[in-house]
């Protein structure tokens, strides 16, 4: 099987071609403002470098931080209406109550509270009021808002009100994007609603970006299917991703960690992914990224997604290096993708970490003669500062005193030379494109969402049955049976149905079966 993995980051678009479990070629191209040109360039380069015929490619997997970055940087976000069904309950804490002010402003802060919602046992808090919703729809239309997030109290128990309200808004606002919270999240109104609102404000962007991916792939003559990777490292098809862009959050760190594990063969390690502007640090346990435990914030907003436990520092290949009275500072500001014009070695005027590495003679990049004036003392002090920053974050990621290796990946890996904090450093082959490798080896999942009557079957038997079905669904989706792991189990009692009814959701994931 021939797979292409692509990672579309803020600075670079990387691509790899894999034949089975072999990496044939990997390339880096600059990310372009239209996304598409960068993807086309990366695809053409990687096909040329691998000598692969585009027609032979079976599947393309894309990981992208584009949607996360849009939220974090508050750009390209659509004006969004957040409608919550639950009055008179919930009025004390309206939608977006815990959002950072600047993000709320970026999407307009349009919130509406309406009647509806269910009690825990399915009883109605108050009936849906169609006239009220039509009034809200008229206000939304008057404000020319084209995307709506709908949340209803206890919608994971009963989704009827969200669906009905969705239909009312779809009729009243033709062409509007409608996001229903029960399709994205679990119990926990604010977190689920937050995810739905973030999804809604990304729908215009996702339509544009997914179309760019589709066109880029078509333009290079690749006929195979294409997928996007989700936050838990599994695949979703393009149409689904377009509807649920929020599910791509944190897929970047997941891909880089899984790519690092795959390329190095090391299963327990700390992974440092050094990009142009930031370094992400996380840890691998048995080849999987360690998951964050409680609520995870994205761009300052609380969610309850399954995500890897990663933190970032402002250190990358484009980080500014500045001498101050207190000594040398590195980052957090960076030239980012403008490194190819602004760094000294490329004829620019800004001193970056990459310039210092080239001046030290540790890496051949750009024009070394332009950094000949940097003194050995300055080089040494900059390198000491960089290593201190890396040591600090690696130390934070360590859970036990055992000497785990540190796998260093990403384009900015050239900054690292020698052990970090006494820990062995592993720089695998193709380290610069580990993210794209992680996307190429993304897992497939099988999900089951079923109601069991626990009056007729024991809870243990119901869970075992659901796990079995999820496993079979994963196998049917292409997973290798011996690699399957159950990653999520949730049961929600549905007290309004007879027979002790319980909704069981199970997700199984496994490695894609590669011939």
């Amino acid at each position, binding site marked *: 099987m021939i797979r292409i993995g692509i990672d579309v980051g803020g600075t670079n678009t990387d691509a790899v071609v894999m034949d089975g479990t072999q990496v044939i070629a990997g390339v880096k191209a600059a990310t372009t403002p239209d996304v598409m040109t960068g993807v086309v360039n990366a695809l053409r380069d990687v096909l040329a470098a691998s000598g692969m015929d585009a027609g032979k490619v079976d599947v393309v997997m894309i990981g992208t931080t584009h949607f996360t970055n849009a939220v974090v940087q508050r750009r390209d976000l659509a004006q969004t209406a957040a409608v919550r069904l639950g009055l008179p*309950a919930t009025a004390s804490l309206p939608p977006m109550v815990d959002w950072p002010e600047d993000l709320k402003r970026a999407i307009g802060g349009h919130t509406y509270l309406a009647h509806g919602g269910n*009690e825990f*046992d399915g009883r109605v808090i108050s009936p849906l009021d169609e006239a009220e919703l039509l009034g809200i729809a008229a206000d939304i239309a008057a404000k020319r808002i084209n995307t709506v997030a709908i949340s209803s109290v206890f919608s994971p128990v009963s989704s009827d009100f969200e669906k009905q309200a969705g239909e009312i808004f779809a009729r009243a606002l033709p062409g509007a994007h409608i996001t229903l919270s029960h399709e994205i999240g679990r119990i926990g109104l604010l977190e689920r609603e937050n995810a739905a609102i973030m999804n809604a404000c990304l729908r215009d962007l996702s339509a544009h970006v997914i179309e760019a991916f589709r066109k880029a792939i078509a333009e290079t003559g690749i006929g195979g299917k294409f997928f996007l990777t989700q936050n838990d490292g599994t695949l979703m098809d393009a149409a689904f991703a377009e509807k649920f862009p929020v599910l791509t959050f944190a897929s970047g760190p997941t891909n880089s960690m899984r790519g690092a594990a795959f390329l190095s063969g090391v299963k327990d390690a700390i992974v440092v992914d050094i990009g142009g502007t930031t370094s992400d640090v996380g840890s691998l346990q048995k080849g999987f990224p360690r*998951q964050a435990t409680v609520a995870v914030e994205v761009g300052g907003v609380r969610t309850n997604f399954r995500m890897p436990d990663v933190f970032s520092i402002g250190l990358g290949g484009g980080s500014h290096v500045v001498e101050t009275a207190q000594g040398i500072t590195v980052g957090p500001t960076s030239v980012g993708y403008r490194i190819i014009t602004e760094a000294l070695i490329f004829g620019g005027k800004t001193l970056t970490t990459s310039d210092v590495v080239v001046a030290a003679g540790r890496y051949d990049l750009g024009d070394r003669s332009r950094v000949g004036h940097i003194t050995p003392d300055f080089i040494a002090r900059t390198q000491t500062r960089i290593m201190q920053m890396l040591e600090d974050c690696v130390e934070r990621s360590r859970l036990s005193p055992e000497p785990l290796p540190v796998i260093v990946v990403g384009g900015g890996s050239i900054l690292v030379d020698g052990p970090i904090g006494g820990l062995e450093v592993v720089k695998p082959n193709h380290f610069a494109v580990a993210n794209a490798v992680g996307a190429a080896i993304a897992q497939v999942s099988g999900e089951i969402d079923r109601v069991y009557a626990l009056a007729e079957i024991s809870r243990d038997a119901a869970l075992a049955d659901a796990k079995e079905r999820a496993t079979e669904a994963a196998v049917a989706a292409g997973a290798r049976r011996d690699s399957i792991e159950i990653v999520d189990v949730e049961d929600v009692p549905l007290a309004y149905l007879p027979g002790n009814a319980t909704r069981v959701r199970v997700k199984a994931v496994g490695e894609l079966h590669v011939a």
Partner: protein
Amino acid sequence: MKILRTIKAEDMEDIATGGAILGTGGGGDPYIGKLMAQEAIRKHGPVNLIDIDELADDALVVPVAMMGAPTVMTEKLPQGDELINAFRALEQLLGRKIDAVLCGEAGGVNSTTPFVVAAMTGLPLVDGDGMGRAYPELQMVTFTMHGVSATPMVLCDDKGNSLVLNTVSNAWTERLARAATVEMGGSALLAFYSMTGAVAKKAIVRGTLTLCAQLGETLRQAKASHVDPVNAVVDKLGARVIFHGRVKDIDRRTVGGFARGSARFDGVEEWKGHTFKLDFQNEFLMAERDGEILVTTPDLITVLEAESGRPVTADALRYGLRLIALALPSNPQWQNPAGIALVGPRYFGYDVDYRNYFEA
């Protein structure tokens, strides 16, 4: 009146974190309570925390609280006026002005609900509570052991319904209020246990809101200075680590106005090969390791995230999470036959006598 400390909106972060630790897995989502308190403080001004000795013996003190199933509270947020309505209605019923607000339960959401009323009324808030932790039922307060009646009590829901209860015992208050809470949709807000300053000086567990703030601060500082946060909490509370493991199964349902169930864990690292089980009725009531009962109420059982030391509620337990369980000593007020009868393992239906984990 001497003010211990003035609590501003940003101070609620530490209090909610500490409240979640003393919440022993239950007590309702402190995140929701924190947001409600912050909204109230931003709108009405900061809250003055005072020592109980600042109050006159004939002062009137009233605790407020939220009751119900924590799962419901994370989903069906309050309407917003329930607490102040219950408080004002009780004041009218008592026929005299209330002088100070008290915390009923310094764990979970109820470590923060009194701040909402204190901010809205401008009354001082007493530094202390009726449990020194969280418990699932409303008669489980030190006030009961000092003969304070829970009623007259006012119970309000999100729809605008309110109920006045007059009962023959605090156990009956729990039964009737619980039934009403279930009908109200699984959560309700209330004002109860009105008492004089003189009684409160004997009946409360002192200093627990300050303890919540200090616990939150301990975690925040541990994080800032890269000290092991779990150890920092252990040191601060004289706690002991009883397990480190991965959640293997959670059986959780909303029954009779409570979140009931159990969570099973498989050990990791130093506990590899061992199993662990937590039973909960809103709060963690009993911990079993390798099939043997290890800790029961009134000793506290709390669960923290290993890396950050952040407390994890029974409601937030999810398949696959790696967590550390701690046992914490209870307030001495519970360490007598009356206290054990009120909150010990036999009350919750376990056929086992209470054994103080820290004396075993």
